[in-house]
């Protein structure tokens, strides 16, 4: 008979006998969990990037210092993408009242491709969304430019050779990117008017942008094409380059979602490990018998590999279907709750999950089959111990390798994965050692106690090997659940705390030293206080370690861009108490020596390290000092941050203005008008749109992670079930024998409860320890947020562990202790 037919027949027989349920269920739930979490997070990430792309005005932007050749836009359109081009340049604009520097942006129909422009009909009027652009002959301008030039709608303004009519006040421009503080106020005009202004001549510095938007796959494909043929002066922008706040929040969101996938994969792996082990143990005799009947090793491996493959495929298909339903439910719930339309699910995550399930199944089962090659049949039938140790070790080593590969592949976030795996390995090692010790201790305690307690504790000791594995399995399962519940909650809470609901949404710059006191007083009167005033000094970086800085020497376009402009420097008697130093430290004392503290990102960009000397040109005066600390800045906190801060003595005599930030509740917008009237020179920068985007993302990611938890919970329960099922037969036999020997129901019950509760509490304690360690590691190393130790975690873990495992265990055996012992014995 054909070996495939035989394998299928054997599988069918076992299916009828109910032998395959646990393994099938484990693979199915594992695949379903992984698929749904994967597909859902992929949809979520896509939605987030589409959301954030509004801040770019497009899905992809090619920035260039010369007009991009029309062929590029045509090629994009041929791929079904929409394009629009903008040009941006600084120029003086004037009225009879005076003139002011403006940042002019010329746009054509279709702009912006993502996000919407907001305009108002009067300076302090209510704004509205528009899909238009300034009509030819008209301009829209930002309130601060209108203020500076005392312009109202319908006035005219001189731009180059042209006189253009002010048609509206521009209140929100989605892709208003870059450094707010360095940019002059915006004047937006129609591209068809540009030539007439005469402002675009050879040699003028113009920043062209080709905005491209459309289907994600087409965008990614075209991005690759563009990237491969970038010319000097051209660079591709993503939203991460456009706004550091968005970069930070996207990074964190991806890591949270990655963590969810990681844990789902981990639970899947443990569920499959346990059930594969169980399956193989039950089939060792069958393998040995096949040897007695003359089957070759090859035949046996083939037979079981085929069975496992077919079983795995069936379970994987069922799992994919279940996973599809699961993520659809998740998406629907999230869509309602977070008002987010998710893009449709891709096929790839489902295939990946199915493949992962199969790889895990193979990783955990095939090595055992191969190990049997050298073991004589009789030794297996007699349960010779040495044969089993090797079997167990082979399973774990191969399985763990498969699991690590899976996790790295699925999560792609190497530091996150390695950290979780390392801490997990440490937890498991500690678990094995501690569980072993405690199992011995339980035996010692059992020997000195009496009654049913004694038997329960002694049972733990008798099954030492099995008990340790069971405790380890429960620990892993609970650890993942704790990470998903308590630690996840803590991490999200920390993240929320770093971005409070009343995070500053307005920045005020250009505050003159003599206005500082009265402005603070004004803000306090209107309950807008809280934020400090920081001195701000503009300076050009001229030398590093005595060597003159030449932006052309830097390969990176953005770095060049940065060096060509002025830096915002600040000074302080001491750095804020919660400064996150990466290297070095702050200063204190009355007259510390001259020194700078530099933000980590800019230091990396300019290859600066501790001890380097930076020299700035501040209004013609050279200011030079050594770097004594590097700081990490959380840009998504929306506080006033500076790349470079010096000590007070160093910069005190330069001409500084002040900057502050505060939260302006929507109801108090009119206060702002009063402020601008009272201090006309101030520039108010509205970051509420970006802040809103970041807060929305935070909310949505939180909600998404909560929902994902439900699915992982199901996987976790399967792990616990598989761990219990693994020793069910043994326990059933024991229970029946106890009954034969005259044990009463109560005695049996007490002994079981004692044993299970002890296992559960032990596992709960170890899981709490592991979860705390991992939570701390994730928080401080991966998410860079402060971690608060949560004592509740331990209480929950130990309590729920003890009660849960005892209840599940006793429930699982309940049927058995009711059945007549002989029925049980016959059934095993």
């Amino acid at each position, binding site marked *: *008979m054909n070996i495939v037919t*035989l394998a299928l*027949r054997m599988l069918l*027989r*076992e299916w009828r*006998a*109910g*032998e395959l349920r646990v393994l099938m269920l484990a693979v199915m739930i594992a695949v379903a969990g992984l698929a749904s979490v994967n597909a859902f997070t992929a949809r979520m990430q896509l939605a987030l990037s589409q959301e954030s792309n509004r801040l770019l005005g497009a899905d992809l932007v090619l920035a260039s210092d010369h007009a991009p050749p029309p062929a590029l836009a045509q090629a994009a359109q041929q791929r079904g993408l929409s394009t629009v081009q903008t040009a941006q340049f600084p120029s003086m604009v004037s009225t009879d009242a005076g003139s002011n520097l403006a940042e002019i942006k010329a746009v054509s129909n279709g702009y912006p491709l993502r996000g919407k422009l907001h305009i108002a009909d009067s300076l302090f009027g209510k704004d509205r969304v528009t899909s238009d652009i300034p009509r030819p002959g008209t301009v829209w301008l930002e309130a601060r430019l209108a203020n500076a030039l005392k312009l109202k709608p319908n006035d005219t303004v001189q731009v180059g050779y042209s006189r253009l009519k002010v048609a509206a006040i521009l209140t929100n421009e989605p892709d208003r990117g870059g450094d707010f503080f360095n940019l002059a106020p915006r004047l937006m005009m129609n591209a068809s008017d540009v030539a007439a202004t005469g402002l675009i001549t050879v040699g003028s510095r113009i920043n062209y942008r080709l905005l491209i938007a459309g289907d994600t796959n087409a965008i990614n494909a075209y991005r690759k094409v563009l990237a491969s043929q970038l010319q000097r002066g051209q660079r591709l922008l993503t939203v991460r380059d456009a706004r550091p706040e968005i970069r930070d929040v996207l990074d964190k969101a991806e890591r949270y979602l990655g963590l969810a996938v990681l844990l789902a994969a981990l639970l899947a792996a443990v569920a499959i490990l346990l059930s594969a082990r169980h399956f193989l143990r039950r089939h060792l*005799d*069958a393998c040995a*018998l*096949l*040897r*007695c*009947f*003359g*089957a*070759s*090793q*090859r*035949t046996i491996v083939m037979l079981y590999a085929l069975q496992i493959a077919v079983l795995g495929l069936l379970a994987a298909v069922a799992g994919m279907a279940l996973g599809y339903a699961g993520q659809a439910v998740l998406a629907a719930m999230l869509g309602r709750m977070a008002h987010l339309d998710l893009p449709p699910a891709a096929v790839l995550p489902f295939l990946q999950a199915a493949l992962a399930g199969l790889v895990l199944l193979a990783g955990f089962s095939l090595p055992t089959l191969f190990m049997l*090659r*050298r*073991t*004589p*049949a*009789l*030794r297996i*039938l007699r349960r010779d111990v040495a044969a089993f140790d090797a079997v167990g070790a082979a399973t774990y080593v191969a399985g763990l390798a498969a699991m690590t590969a899976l996790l790295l592949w699925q999560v792609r976030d190497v530091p996150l994965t390695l950290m979780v795996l390392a801490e997990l390995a440490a937890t498991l090692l500690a678990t094995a050692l501690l569980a072993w010790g405690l199992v011995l201790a339980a035996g010692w305690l059992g020997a000195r106690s009496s009654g049913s307690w004694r038997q329960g504790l002694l049972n733990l000791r008798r099954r030492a090997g099995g008990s340790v594995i069971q405790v380890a399995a429960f620990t892993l399962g609970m650890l993942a659940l704790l990470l998903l519940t308590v630690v996840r909650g803590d991490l999200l809470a920390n993240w929320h705390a770093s971005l409070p609901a009343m995070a500053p949404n307005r920045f005020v710059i250009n505050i003159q030293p003599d206005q500082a006191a009265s402005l603070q007083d004004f803000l306090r009167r209107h309950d807008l206080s809280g934020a400090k005033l920081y001195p701000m000094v503009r300076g050009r970086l001229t030398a590093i370690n005595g060597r003159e800085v030449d932006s052309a020497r830097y390969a990176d376009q953005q770095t060049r861009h940065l060096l060509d402009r002025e830096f915002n420097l600040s000074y302080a008697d001491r750095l804020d108490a919660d400064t996150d130093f990466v290297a070095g430290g702050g200063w204190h004392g009355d007259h510390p020596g001259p020194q700078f503290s530099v933000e980590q990102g800019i230091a990396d960009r300019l290859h600066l390290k501790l001890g380097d000397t930076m020299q700035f040109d501040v209004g013609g005066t050279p200011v030079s000092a050594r770097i004594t600390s590097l700081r990490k800045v959380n840009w998504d906190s929306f506080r006033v941050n500076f790349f470079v801060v010096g000590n007070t003595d160093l910069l005190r005599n330069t001409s500084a203005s002040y900057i502050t930030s505060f939260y302006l509740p929507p109801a108090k917008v009119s206060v702002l008008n009063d402020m601008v009237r009272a201090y006309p020179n101030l520039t108010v920068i509205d970051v509420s749109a970006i802040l809103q985007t970041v807060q929305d993302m935070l909310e949505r990611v939180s909600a998404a992670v909560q929902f994902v938890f439900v699915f992982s919970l199901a996987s976790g329960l399967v792990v616990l079930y598989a761990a219990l099922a693994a020793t069910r037969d043994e326990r059933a036999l024991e229970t029946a024998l106890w009954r034969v020997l005259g044990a009463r129901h109560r005695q049996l019950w007490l002994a079981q409860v004692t044993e299970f509760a002890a296992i559960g509490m032990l596992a709960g304690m170890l899981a709490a320890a592991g979860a705390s360690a991992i939570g701390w590691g994730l928080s401080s190393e991966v998410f860079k947020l402060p971690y608060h130790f949560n004592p509740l975690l331990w209480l929950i873990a130990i309590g729920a562990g003890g009660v849960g495992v005892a209840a599940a265990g006793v429930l699982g055996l309940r049927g058995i202790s009711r059945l007549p012992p002989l029925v049980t014995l*016959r*059934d*095993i």
Partner: protein
Amino acid sequence: MHVVNLAKQVPVNGAALTILHPTSFDIQRGESVAIVGASGSGKSTLLGLLAGLDQPSTGEVWLAGKSLAALDEDGRAALRGELIGFVFQSFQLLPMLTALENVMLPLELSGASDARKRAQRWLERVGLADRQQHRAQQLSGGEQQRVAIARAFAVDPALLLADEPTGNLDAETGARVIELLFELNREQGTTLVLVTHDTELAARCGRRLSLHAGHLESGV
């Protein structure tokens, strides 16, 4: 079959415990041999070694001109598949399969096309025609024993090794099984090696090997 200096030791608490002392004997094709001895004297161990189900500490078993020691596990399995039927003292049925499926398994493995029919015929011959669809673990000890015997016979082995084949059977069924064994011995020239306590069964065998605490005493 030649058995040369066959011995088995197992490590027990670090020391080596000899459960079979060096033993040599021959068994001719078509012979019937009974291995007798007290419980724990090493009968099952010897039988397992004869079938190549375990490896001896020293000595060799030659079967059909081949030394079992010279073969690897696969080689031994292949030889068993061709030549040997084995009845375990503890039956070793697969608990989740039915009686019929248990008997069919070795036939299916050897590629027999009429596995079902042959298995049914053998179950009839051991008196279990009406128990075919029962799961092995639901059968009584005697019934399981008969399924195990049917399974060993089903492949028409040249050498049948049976560990206490009538140990769990009532007199009537036991007698039927004994008849069957010797019928096969007569008709197909199957060599029989039986471990037994049953003096009647032992008496019907052509030769008796007696084991005492791992020592082979007599080879009549």
